[in-house]
Structure formats: C-alpha cells, structure tokens
C-alpha cells in the first residue's frame, strides 16, 4: 500500500443503498473549501458521514493529510478523529448553555493541541452576545453559528459541513453567509462543504466536486466548475400565478418570482441558469 499523500484528503468508499450506490475514489486538496455539489439523494451526505466515521463503510479507505483514518485494518472511531462536523439541523446540546456547548469539544482537546482559540472563534462568528443564552432562546441562524463555533473550538484538522444553511430561511442565510466568508479567508484547515445551492457554492467554494447518482461527475477548480455547472443546470418549474407584474414560479418546492413571463398558471417551464462572465 502506498504511503498516504501528506497534503491530500484521499477517500475511497463504496456503499450500496436502496436508491443509489456511492462509489468514489477522491483525491482532494487539504486546504480551502471544497464543495460537494449535487442533487438531493446523490450520496453527498453519505460520503461526508463516511469521512467522519459516523457511517462505518466496510472496505473503505481514508487518509487525511497523511494520517490514516480508515483502511483494511484500521478504523479510527469518530471521537478520535480531529474533525469538526456541522449538521444540517440543529445539534446543540439542549441541556447546556451556549457557553457550555462551545466549550464541549474544546475541553476534550488537550491545551497544547488547540490550534484555534476561544477569542478568535468568538470574534469571527460574532458569538459574544449569545454566550450567556440557552440554545432554545436562539434563532435558527444563531444556532448554526454556535454549532460552527463549537466545531472549530475542538481544533479540527478537517471541517465537514453538511448543508449548514439548508434548514434556514432566506434572511437567516443572508445573515450567516458573511461569517462563512470570514472563515473562508481566515481558516487554515480544509473544509468539505456539502450543498445543493449554487449560490453558496459560487460564493464560498475553491474547489468543486459534482456528484451524480453516487459517482463523481466532475471535479476541479470552482471557477471552472461553475461555468460548466451553469451550462448544465436546468430546472423544470411551473407557473403558479401572476401578481402585480411578477410571475410566481414553483421550482423544486421553492417559490421564485420573475418579472412577468409569458405563460399561463399551470404551464410547465424549463429554467436554465448560467454564471455570467
């Protein structure tokens, strides 16, 4: 077996599921934000869970920055992997205050192994006003910020984010995105960011990995990928109604308003999205 590459995340997993088979052999850079992009049910979350060790995939291999986390005869359990994981839905401990939530992972890492420090994380994520509160007092966006802070304070060498904004409404997303931008600029560790939202990928990702039906469809620099992505993304929608000169479309369960489109309510449309320049 080859020695793992010191500056790469190497992952090989094959998982058979009812509706798809995840079959990937990845070599990802161990810096910057890599977006795992693809439609729901293409295996993004399964891949992320396998990397975290939350899903034990027999026969899988995984090495992060030269450290073997899983191979034929090794399986490091999740709590011994230096990773941070941000879940789609809130995962704060309801019985602990925001402060105790933030401290939870930090306390479990020896002081001399901590790479990210309390003050910086609190500052980057604007958590200072929330620290004395209880999780149930927070808004959805605030909760996700705390969850990100909590993951960072455990000084991970790899941050895994599973659609962290998907459960939030538009205004909460708008509130949290600037913080993620900040992280992007300051974090030295690699981030795997699962998303099916092009806007997030466009704004945050350095690298892009497109998954389709459990297989890698494309991988490379995000800028190149988005151009392809733009050409490739087509959505079917249908007209819901016309309101005050706007046309309301329903697109994959979401509502989209466009300046008046020439179509009748109920008509099916095809939307094509391209990145400009």
């Amino acid at each position, binding site marked *: 077996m080859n020695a793992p590459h010191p500056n790469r995340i190497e992952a090989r997993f094959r998982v058979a599921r009812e509706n798809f088979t995840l079959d990937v052999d990845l070599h990802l850079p161990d810096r910057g934000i890599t977006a795992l992009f693809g439609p729901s049910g293409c295996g993004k979350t399964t891949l992320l869970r396998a990397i975290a060790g939350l899903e034990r995939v027999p026969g899988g291999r995984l090495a992060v920055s030269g450290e073997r986390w899983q191979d034929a005869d090794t399986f490091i359990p999740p709590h011994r992997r230096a990773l*941070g994981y941000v879940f789609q839905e809130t*995962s704060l401990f309801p*019985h602990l205050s925001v402060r105790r939530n933030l401290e939870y*992972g930090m306390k*479990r890492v020896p002081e001399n192994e901590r790479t990210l420090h309390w003050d910086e994380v609190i500052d980057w994520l604007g958590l200072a006003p929330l620290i004395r509160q209880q999780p149930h007092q927070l808004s959805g966006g605030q909760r996700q910020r705390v969850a990100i802070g909590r993951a960072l304070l455990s000084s991970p060498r790899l941050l895994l984010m599973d659609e962290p904004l998907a459960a939030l409404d538009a205004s909460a997303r708008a509130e949290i995105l600037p913080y993620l931008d900040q992280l992007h600029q300051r974090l030295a560790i690699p981030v795997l960011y699962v998303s099916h939202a092009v806007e997030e990928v466009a704004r945050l990702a350095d690298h892009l990995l497109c998954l389709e039906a459990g297989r890698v469809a494309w991988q490379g620099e995000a800028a190149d990928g988005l151009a392809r992505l733009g050409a490739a993304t087509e959505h079917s929608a249908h007209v819901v109604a016309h309101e005050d000169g706007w046309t309301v479309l329903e697109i994959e369960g979401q509502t989209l308003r466009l300046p008046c489109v020439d179509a009748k309510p109920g008509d099916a449309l095809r939307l094509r999205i391209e990145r400009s320049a």
Partner: protein
Amino acid sequence: MMLSPGDWQAVVLTLELAAIVTLILFVLGTPIAWWLARTHSKWKAPIGAVVALPLVLPPSVLGFYLLLTMGPNGWVGQFTNAIGIGLLPFTFWGLVVASVFYSLPFMVQPLQTAFESLGERTLEAAATLRASPLDRFFSVAAPIALPGFMTAGILSFAHTVGEFGVVLMIGGNIPGETRVASVQIFDHVEALQYGEAHDLAAVLLVFSFLVLLLLYTWRPKALRL
C-alpha cells in the same frame, strides 16, 4: 395513629428493600434500556418482551418459578449453594432478586422511552466533538434523559413497595427478614386484626399517593407507560 414495633419493622424493611432494588435496577436497567433503545438487532423484540413479562404475568407465576429455580434443586439454588451463599428463598436477598425481576419493566421502559427520544444527531455531534461512547452517555445522554431516570426510579421504588404476591410465594413471612408491609397487612386481616390492618394500610396508601402526586405534579406525562 400508632404502629406496633412489628409494623414499623415491616415498614422499614419495605423501604430498605425498595431502595436497594431501585439502586440495583439503575445499574442493571440502564444498559438494557440503552441497548433496547438503540439496537436494530433481531433480538430487540424478544428481549423487550421478556423485560415486559412481569407487567402481565401474575406475581404467583413469577414467585412459583423463582421458588423452584432458587430452591435446592433449581439451577440458581445449586449455583448459590456452590458459591457458598446458601439458598435465596426466605431471605432478604432472595426478595431483592425477585423484586429486581418483578420491577424491571418499571425501570427499563421509562428509560428506553427517554433514550429513544434523544435523537441520533445529538449523540453524533458529541462523537465529532471528541467524546468517547461512555463520555457521550454521561455528558449528553444521561443529563438529557434525567427526567426519564427520575420517573423510572420513582416507579421502580413504588412498585417494589407495593409488591405482595411474589413476596408471599418466596418470602416465608419471617419478621425483620421477609415480612414486608404488604404481607404484614395481609396477616392482620387474616388474623381479624382490622385495627392494625387499617393503620398500616393507611400508611401505605398515603405513601403511594404522595409518590404518585409528586410524579404527576412534576411530570404530568410521566405515567404513560
């Protein structure tokens, strides 16, 4: 209301029994409940059914089997004899063993419900924050399930206090050893000592009411067994 020394002895014995049984059940019932709440094993249904058996079995059935298995010809009896602690029927520890079986579902079921409602996500989050399985249990699962522990403890304690049939079958009615309050009341009634029976019965009635009042006041949903 005055209780005779014999009645007091029975009350104290009953409370001792219930306290010890509840402590043992916490240690024994927690892993069982945890396993039942989280496993996908094909054994989940059979084991769950065995744990729930005392809910439907008449105490006399349990008492009868315990008397046979813990007796000198039963395998438990031969084991306890072999390791030098003698036979369990007619002893306080025999009652403890019987009560642990009898009250097991009252410990396991509330705990299982509490553990089931924990949610996989919370525990996974703790795992990704460097908490080992045991650490996760004590720092996350147990505190969140604390109300379940309270309910389970109170129900197990109260149910042991109210036990009668099994004790009658294997206790042998020995003062200070196996003559618990419920048996003492039965004896008073049989001996036509209604006054004494009333006094002791009132003590148990008030006690049971207070326990349930506490439970219902503090957790109105607790008794949805």
